């Protein structure tokens, strides 16, 4: 048995990782919709989902059941191949792109050193861009195959938008690549590790490589805006502008096929947040100098008060179900916090993933915040902004960064 395991470890470990990752990501997707609805509701001074489970915690489950049980009608005159293929393609590509994301440094489990991600490829950034390039087809085919003028318009808008912003997105990363000298996301993060400079070593501030780097603030802003356009989110969600196009490219989709687009969009959001974390915010690195070992207790410092608050807030909840569930969650969080504080053997390996997830969460929150704040662009404004502002700005970033690097190398 152990012979078999060790012989086929190279294929078994990735399969286990893929299963865990897909399970986690789909759960996170589901709760991201809840978080989005809650945050936007509070921005607009509403409560948001509140009925299904305490604080609406079971709402994603109810949504999932609804998606499965809904009728899935086939509209007349659709191009069947394109119509059925498009949602699968969207979901498949967005889940595939997560395979090359490193979620933390290498960890050792049961004496086996492993990479905290599915695949450690030395061209992982290019793989991500390749997948982004292909993901246009999901939207374009859905729009064209649905035999609906709103879908077609949405699909066309989306293809044009994605091609336009792909350029700016790719160019905005060049500055980081010039400093890192590699396409591997793992090495890009390791390059930002400066020991005692902490947060200043991140590419955003650019003191990596003993102060040799150049700040990538311009690149970061360009990348973030272009990424929002690539994922078709507000303020760039013209492909599905409901006041003009009903629901754009997915007007004719219902039930699970609509859910596939939905999950695809949220997974793409997660991927892009992970990518901007890795490229500009130091990935899994702590923002504090390496000598400040007391900052390793931060996960506990965060978890215990949140857990206690959920506990004491939960025992006064309106429903009995909530009065059981919420204190249970609070207790669990507190216990995890205490365990982490008591056992450094468990605390040390989770430092990397903790910072990574915290940063990704912050970026995702920013995404939702923007959706709650900004109005939608007009189509010509979108194109003008992409081609006349974002693209020149990212090219300028490439020129400035390379000039600075050459000057530092020679002088």
């Amino acid at each position, binding site marked *: 048995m152990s012979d078999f395991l060790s012989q086929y470890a190279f294929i078994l470990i990735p399969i286990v990782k893929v299963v865990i990752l897909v399970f986690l990501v789909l759960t996170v997707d589901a709760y991201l919709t809840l978080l989005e609805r809650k945050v936007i509701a509070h921005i607009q001074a509403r409560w948001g989902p509140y009925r299904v489970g305490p604080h609406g915690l079971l709402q994603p489950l109810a949504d999932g059941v609804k998606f499965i049980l809904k009728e899935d009608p086939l509209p007349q005159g659709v191009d069947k191949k394109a119509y059925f293929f498009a949602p699968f393609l969207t979901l498949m590509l967005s889940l595939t792109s997560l395979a090359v994301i490193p979620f933390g440094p290498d960890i050792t489990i049961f004496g086996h050193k492993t990479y905290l991600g599915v695949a450690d490829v030395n061209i992982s950034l290019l*793989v991500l861009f390749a997948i982004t*390039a292909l993901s246009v087809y999901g939207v374009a*085919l859905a729009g064209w195959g649905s035999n609906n003028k709103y879908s077609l318009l949405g699909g066309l808008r989306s293809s044009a938008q994605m091609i336009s912003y792909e350029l700016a997105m790719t160019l905005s990363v060049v500055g980081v690549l010039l400093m890192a000298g590699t396409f591997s996301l793992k090495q890009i993060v390791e390059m930002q590790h400066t020991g005692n400079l902490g947060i200043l070593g991140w590419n955003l501030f650019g003191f990596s490589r003993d102060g040799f780097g150049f700040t990538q603030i311009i690149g970061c802003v360009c990348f973030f805006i272009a990424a929002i356009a690539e994922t078709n989110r507000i303020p760039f969600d013209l492909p599905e502008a409901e006041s003009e196009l009903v629901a754009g490219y997915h007007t004719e989709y219902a039930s699970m096929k609509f859910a596939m687009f939905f999950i695809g969009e949220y997974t793409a959001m997660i991927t892009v947040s992970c990518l901007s974390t890795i490229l500009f915010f130091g990935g899994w690195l702590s923002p504090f100098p390496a000598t400040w070992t007391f900052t390793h207790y931060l996960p506990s410092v965060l978890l215990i008060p949140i857990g206690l608050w959920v506990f004491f807030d939960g025992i006064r909840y309106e429903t009995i179900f909530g009065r059981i569930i919420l204190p249970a969650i609070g207790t669990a969080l507190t216990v995890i916090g205490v365990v982490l504080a008591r056992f450094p053997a468990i605390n040390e390996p989770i430092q990397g993933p903790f910072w990574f997830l915290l940063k990704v969460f912050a970026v995702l929150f920013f995404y939702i915040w923007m959706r709650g704040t900004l109005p939608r662009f007009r189509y010509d404004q979108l194109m003008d902004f992409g081609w006349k502002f974002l693209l020149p700005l990212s090219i300028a970033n490439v020129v400035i960064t390379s000039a600075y690097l050459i000057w530092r190398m020679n002088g």
Partner: protein
Amino acid sequence: MSAVLVIFYVLAGLAVLGAVTLILQSHPIHSALSLILVMVSLAGLYLLMGAEFVAAVQIIVYGGAVMVLFVFVIMLLNAGEEEHTSFSKLARFAGIPLALALAGMIAAAIARSSAHLPAPAMSGALTSTKRLSMLLFSEFVYPFELTSFLILVAIVGAIVLAQREGN
């Protein structure tokens, strides 16, 4: 049969399948999709030879940018099903024998050369992205810059043509 060989046959089979369906499909969009399948399988074959940068660029440029424009244009023109016309006389009498002859020639050439085919010399020479860019910016810098100049001319030409339409 080694794993590499299995992957090779799967990818090569997909590429051939895509190429055949490209011709057999009656709708332009389906043909374009088949062509994308060919491009992606070719990228897989490059990856198998260790040319990872070329593989990624194959998908980004051909699978992504170029084919998106194809699909885009087909959608904008709203091209419908192609009509099957009857064979022209030339195609009926000369086409099939010529196609067979060409296939025979290619098969013969492959059969003759495969006996003393050198092993793919990809390991080291062109594989790594760094080496590739070194070559591109030192030895082949003039062809490289000329190509970019050619593309620039094409872009300016496209803008001029579009502008004339507007006026």
